[in-house]
């Protein structure tokens, strides 16, 4: 079994006729956390959207030995790719519990599903308090936890996380990242993380890529990237 869960070669992505990614090459390790860093508009979100079939893409992407090409978003979910989208994608008029149940849409066994809901509540005790509350009325941090919890309900092979720190207070960011670390270390959930908050992302990630205007300009282990002079000046601020 190869240690590479997902590999992309010459990945390009389009919004209509406009090309926004210009041939990315990258690998995601099984059981690891890979971070994509970059400024606003660099193409981080587009990379995730391309990987889960939400925008047009070309190039070779293989996931767990299977070639992904033009697969629909829902089919990718069935393959085990759980995308926690930008803005969290909460079903805001439904309750927390219903949101979690929707996360288990790709799974058959009902007994396991309620066990998994309890497991998610174990990670996020606040969600248990909010089980019957309309998800749209919760705070940003709670909705981010719900989005991660919903992705966990899929028992994913790969989690795609789009700016989990976005719009959250620093203390909540810490809390969310602590849980992501726990999920990765204890449960071996592989993650592809996209962040503007480079400090938080590099502390969690094993590998990182720097992306600028739709191209990868730097890649390596998280330590290497963190030591890089330009990254430090531009993204870490020291």
């Amino acid at each position, binding site marked *: 079994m190869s240690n590479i869960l997902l590999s992309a070669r010459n990945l390009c992505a389009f919004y209509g006729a406009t090309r926004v990614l210009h041939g990315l090459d990258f690998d995601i390790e099984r059981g690891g956390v890979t971070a994509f860093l970059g400024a606003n508009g660099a193409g981080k979100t587009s990379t995730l959207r391309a990987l*889960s079939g*939400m925008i047009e893409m070309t190039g070779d992407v293989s996931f767990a030995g299977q070639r992904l090409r033009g697969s*629909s*978003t*829902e089919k990718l*979910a*069935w393959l085990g790719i*759980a*995308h926690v*989208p930008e803005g969290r*994608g*909460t*079903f*805001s*008029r*439904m309750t927390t519990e*219903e949101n979690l*149940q*929707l*996360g288990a*849409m*790709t799974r058959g066994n009902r007994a396991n599903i309620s066990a998994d809901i309890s497991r998610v509540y174990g990670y996020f005790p606040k969600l248990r308090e909010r089980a019957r509350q309309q998800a749209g009325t919760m705070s940003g941090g709670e909705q981010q936890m719900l989005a991660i919890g*919903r992705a966990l309900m*899929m028992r994913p092979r790969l989690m795609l996380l789009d700016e989990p720190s976005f719009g959250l207070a620093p203390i909540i960011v810490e809390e969310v990242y602590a849980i992501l670390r726990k999920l990765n270390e204890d449960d071996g959930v592989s993650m592809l993380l996209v962040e503007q908050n480079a400090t938080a992302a590099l502390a969690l990630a094993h590998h990182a890529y720097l992306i600028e205007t739709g191209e990868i300009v730097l890649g390596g282990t998280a330590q290497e990237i963190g030591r890089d002079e330009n990254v430090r000046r531009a993204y870490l601020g020291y």
Partner: protein
Amino acid sequence: MELLLHQVFAGLSTGGIYACMALSIVMIYQAIDQLNFAQGEMAMFSTFVAWQILQWGLPYWPTFFLTIALSFLGGIVIERVVFKPLKNAPALSHVVIFIAIFAILNSCAGFVWDFTIKSFPSPFGTQPLFGNGIISSHDAGMIGVTTVLLLLLYVFFRFTRVGLAMRATAENPESARLVGVRVGWMIALGWGMAAAIGAVAGMMIAPVVFLEPNMMLSILLYGFAGAVVGGLTSPFGAVVGGFSVGVIENLAGTFIPIVGRELKLTIALTLIVAVLTVRPSGLFGRVLVTRV
């Protein structure tokens, strides 16, 4: 007093039909953001199919359920063949297609079964229930059937996984895809269910308004009124709106002398305009806020 009660019950029984029409309009509106003008004609066509099967000699209740099943399939076929390819087309293309389906179903029904008025049997009979004039057995049966139908739908949407997936599709199709909901099929299912609900409404109202290709025209208007009063984004609101329109229409027709029978339909339109003016999202609808 007896007249008042009679009118309220009569209003509730036709209101149930309006509620069904309103609900099927809302279901399709939720799925594709368009008002299905052809909803009434779909229901009318289903009712003709039922009439034909009855003519061939099948008893009422098997015909009833067979027609529901056929209409369900018909709704899915319409979505798959006509609307799925139009997924990304502008709103006007949808409107034109709705009008086309309206005209096609209407003239096909006229061509196959001609435009003469036919009577359609009621499974409940038309004698007064309990021997007094308050409610006829068909009115009571109509209320019963629509109540059972609405309860079944409530249970379906509230407690089943497919129902949950359909609600997710209506609320946030992109997120629904991300958790693996087959959004395209949920929309097709919504069409099937809307067609099936319409079939029930058509078969229930046909004994009252008689069967002919234009029978659903005014019913659809009342259905629209119900949907708008309740709010196009709220299935619950559509049901409440449908029942209210039925009762208001009957009471106004009886107790406001100037309205009488002739101006009854005007009430539906007045309600639509009034609600849209005062509360554009309807009584139970969500106010849509768009970030710009």
